């Protein structure tokens, strides 16, 4: 079974899904086969009927001709948090940005809840977007920044004001004192909270986060991670989180995907991650906590 090549495995898998959808009763054999193969091979894409977001054979070629992503397939279960880790240049951000087509893949498909959304604006409104620089609009108050997507959708002012209040509370900011301030009057951590509130404004099915806390000091980062974890327990959002911080990935994610040179090297549950003896994981884990003599394993504490 181990000798079956990935391409074969994934075609098994696709057949399984296709006929599962059409005639559920007749394909149990193939499905079972596919499941065996899947568990046997770490790098095989996860299959779940409840995939909120699915990348199928995504390839991205840079203008220079370099392959940034090379046939990446990944299914992200509804309501789960998936962390993508990897070196700089491994294709993490490219994968995230191909989800909302900020990057147009040269091959492959992105499915949202099993369907392809061709309307770019509609697609992007289904996905919250949080980045390291937050990208808050400097000429808008915090209230307007958080409500901008609702404004763009044409919701009434009263609706927006109420929702913004809820959202600010959700990310741990006092609506009274923050609503009418401007981004430049806030600290880095506060801005990041506002960025998160904005991303959640229209209750998107999917939340894309690209190094959201990468620019914050360790203490603020830990606070933000706690806040995010609490918040994600309360909302039904599927999260794709790009990070190079292994601790953050282990703390927040249900599933960890390791990318290298535009390919998925490892795709496992969090608990499995440190148990596997995959050389890439071992070297990645070893690179963390090098100076911390008190911690014997990178799993010990994340703040």
């Amino acid at each position, binding site marked *: 079974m181990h000798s079956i090549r990935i391409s074969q495995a994934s075609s098994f898998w696709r057949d399984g899904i296709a006929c599962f959808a059409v005639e559920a009763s007749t394909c149990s054999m193939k499905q079972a086969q596919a499941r065996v193969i899947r568990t046997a091979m770490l790098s095989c894409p996860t299959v779940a009927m409840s995939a909120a977001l699915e990348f199928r054979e995504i390839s991205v070629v840079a203008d220079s001709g370099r392959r940034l992503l090379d046939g990446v397939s990944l299914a992200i279960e509804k309501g789960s948090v998936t962390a993508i880790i990897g070196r700089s240049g491994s294709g993490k951000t490219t994968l995230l940005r191909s989800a909302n087509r900020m990057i147009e893949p040269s091959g492959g498909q992105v499915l949202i809840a099993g369907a392809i959304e061709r309307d770019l604006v509609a697609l992007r*409104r289904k996905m919250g977007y949080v980045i390291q620089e937050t990208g808050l609009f*400097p000429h808008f108050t915090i209230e307007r920044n958080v409500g901008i997507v609702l404004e763009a959708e044409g919701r009434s002012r009263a609706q927006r004001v109420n929702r913004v209040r809820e959202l600010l509370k959700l990310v741990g900011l006092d609506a009274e004192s923050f609503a009418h301030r401007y981004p430049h009057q806030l600290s880095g951590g506060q801005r990041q909270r506002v960025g998160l509130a904005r991303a959640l404004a229209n209750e998107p099915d999917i939340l894309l986060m690209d190094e959201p806390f990468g620019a914050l000091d360790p203490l603020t980062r830990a606070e933000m991670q706690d806040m995010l974890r609490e918040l994600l327990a309360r909302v039904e959002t599927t999260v794709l989180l790009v990070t190079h911080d292994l601790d953050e990935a282990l703390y927040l994610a249900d599933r960890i995907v390791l990318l290298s040179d535009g390919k998925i090297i490892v795709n496992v549950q969090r608990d499995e991650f440190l148990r596997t003896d995959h050389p890439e994981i071992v070297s990645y884990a070893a690179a963390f906590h090098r100076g911390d003599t008190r911690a014997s394993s990178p799993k010990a504490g994340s703040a």
Partner: protein
Amino acid sequence: MSARFLSQYGSEITTLTMEHLWLTGAAMLFAAALAIPAGIWLTRSPRWAKPVIGVTNVLQTIPSLAMFGFLLPLPWLGERAARIAIVALTAYALLPIVRNTYAGIRGIDPTLIEVARAIGLTDRQRLFKIELPLAASFIFAGLRTSTVTCIGIATIAAAVGAGGLGELIFRGVASVDNRLVLAGAVPAALLALVADGALGLMERRFKVPATESTRT
């Protein structure tokens, strides 16, 4: 300037000042209506930026007296001196507005543009909610430069009979009467100062606080 001079020319100065304002105002409206959309379009197709800005630049280098002369023989324009003046002034006003609109939008932090697209704003929403407000202070700076220049150049329009405060200046030069020259030049200078101040206020009013950055 004696009281007698003012009582003799006061009403004429007022009429000519209004005429001057009308010529410049009309030209500025046309110029803004052409140049702001042109500047926006250039940000969408930047390969045209160089040639278009080049052409408006050349327009500005034409000596104003020559520009009025060139336009004189044109069929519809030549019939009315005011038309010539407005077209010529519009041509002079284009460059600062096009250039500042283009540079103002291009100069916006690319992260903000990216976020505007990523959160699902349509192209129109991005332009009107994000790009134009963020570039507004630049655009007003362009309008300000153009307006001040045009108020000055509009005095030359009297040479083709378009009226305006230049008429007093030309008459004063011809009759070697410095009081007449001043009667044209001082109100023109005041107009320019007032326009400069007012548009400067707008420019500051739309200034956006330093773009945020999480890196300190």
